[in-house]
């Protein structure tokens, strides 16, 4: 199958300042891709280019076999903006009905759609009375209209409580299983780890990393930290045996590369009588993320 979204060498500049430079990526049908990056890294700009809201300065973008923003593309792409907002005078049902009519869908399914995102009870209340999480659900409901082939979701889980987040990702799993491609941005690293197939990291408008989390972990080759709690008074003995160790609070810390891990462990185990406890801390998701997004001196 051909990919739903293909971007090659995309560049976008605003008054000579590059917001995106030489970004290439592709998303296959049924694939869930997470877009990560600090604020201002170019995530929203990239999404707006894909949606055809802003024109690229250079490069090629193909969305569902069409140019971004063309009617053929817009018919098959759904968007959930960051902090989805709607007219406060309309009810949730009216708003969804309106969007369904714009997509040429039978509006009989509007109520069912709202129930699917857990808004059935509030469908006839004005959106002005909704909480942030409820507005986000209206946004999600409109993104589900008409079985889109590509969903572009800008921080979809902001404002949702943990239970709603889980429901939301279950919904996405179902859509992906039906062949929809999903591109979502998020700051919540732990949830995208478990719920997406691939990660893309943007930094300063460049794509600095791409792959599954284990790939990225291996490629980053971040040091492993070991936390040693010494038996009373043996601190200095251990410090002498392990010149790399530093004092951290009550204990000692030593860090080493992945390759040196076993050798270091062996040296620590030689100090058996002087050590109370040993804790091994692998690089966290946040460490990996920071590693990639800081590589450009950001």
């Amino acid at each position, binding site marked *: 199958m051909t990919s739903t979204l293909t971007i090659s060498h995309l560049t976008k500049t605003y008054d000579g300042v590059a917001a995106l430079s030489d970004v290439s990526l592709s998303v296959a049908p049924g694939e869930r891709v997470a877009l990560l990056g600090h604020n201002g890294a170019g995530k929203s700009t990239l999404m*707006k280019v894909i*949606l*055809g*809201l*802003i024109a690229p300065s250079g490069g090629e973008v193909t969305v569902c076999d069409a140019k971004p923003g063309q*009617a053929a593309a*817009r*018919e098959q*792409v*759904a*968007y959930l*903006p960051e*902090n*989805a*907002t*709607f*007219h406060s*005078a*309309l009810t949730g049902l*009216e708003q969804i009905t*309106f*969007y369904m*009519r*714009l*997509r*040429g869908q039978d509006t009989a399914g509007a109520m069912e759609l709202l129930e699917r995102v857990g808004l059935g009870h509030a469908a006839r209340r004005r959106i002005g009375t909704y909480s942030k999480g409820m507005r986000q659900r209206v*946004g999600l409901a*409109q993104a589900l209209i008409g079985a889109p082939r590509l969903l572009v979701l800008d921080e979809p889980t902001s404002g949702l409580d943990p239970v709603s987040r889980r429901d939301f990702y279950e919904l996405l799993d179902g859509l992906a299983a039906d062949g929809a491609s999903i591109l979502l941005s998020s700051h919540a690293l732990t949830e995208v780890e478990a719920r997406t197939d691939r990660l893309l990291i943007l930094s300063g408008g460049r794509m600095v990393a791409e792959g599954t989390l284990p790939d990225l972990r291996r490629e980053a080759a971040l040091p492993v930290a070991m936390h040693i709690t010494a038996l009373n008074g043996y601190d200095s003995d251990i410090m002498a045996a392990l010149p790399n160790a530093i004092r951290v609070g009550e204990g000692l810390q030593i860090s080493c590369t992945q390759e040196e891990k076993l050798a270091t462990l062996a040296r620590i185990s030689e100090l058996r009588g002087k050590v109370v406890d040993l804790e091994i801390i692998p690089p966290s998701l946040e460490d990996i993320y920071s590693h990639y997004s800081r590589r450009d001196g950001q």
Partner: protein
Amino acid sequence: MITRILATAATEIRIASRNRWVLIAVVLMVLFSLVLSAAGSAPTGALGADRLSVVAASLTSLSVYLVPLVALLMSFDAVAGEVERGTLPLLLTYPVARWEVLAGKLLAHTAILILAIVAGYGAAAAIAIVVDPAALSGLAALWRLTWTSVLLGATFLGIGYALSSRAKRVSGAAGLAIGLWLGLVVLYDLGLLAAVVADDGGFFTKSIFPAALLANPADAFRLFNLTAAEATAAASGVAGAANAIPQWQSLLSVAVWPFIALALAALSFRKVVP
């Protein structure tokens, strides 16, 4: 295409009625029409015209201020409001063309405007006919006033959408709308009259003045309605000064302006980057 325009129009009407804009427009038009028809009911016999024609002439002077105002009040929020609320980017990712969005809003706002105009003029006409059954002969003048008012309203709706697209902020759009209303409807005439007085029947009065009147949609509207109703031509200073302008020219201006304004709106909206 039609479905999308109608869907937009239905949503806009719903929003306008929830925001009380429908009520405000109707009450405004009815109230002013009634006040005017009550105030203008005294001197009918002297002019030899039927009562309704006189009411229509008074309503012309009222509408030239009120219809543009109501139209601008409804339209200044159309694009800037969507930008400020943040609803525009999402809307533009839908398979709906920008002109369809504008057409839907125009349909809704024009419908509200027609409702307000018909309610206002209808109330004034009903009173005139009840008081003096002979006033029925003035229905032609009232009908002319009604459809030209709708065209005038459409012109200012288009102008309102255009400046709403350019302002990008609701407060800025509101300021522009009020400024434009003052400029086109109030200051424009004052400026022209001052120039005519200073010119004292020279080149300006003969050549530029008629063209300047036709170029302004509000003046063309007044001109057309007053030259059509000859009996009341004497009542208006501006129309009196420009009696030389043939009626077809003012009609042309009244009919063409909505298209110019809407083209301007479509062009401005196309340039908006969400």
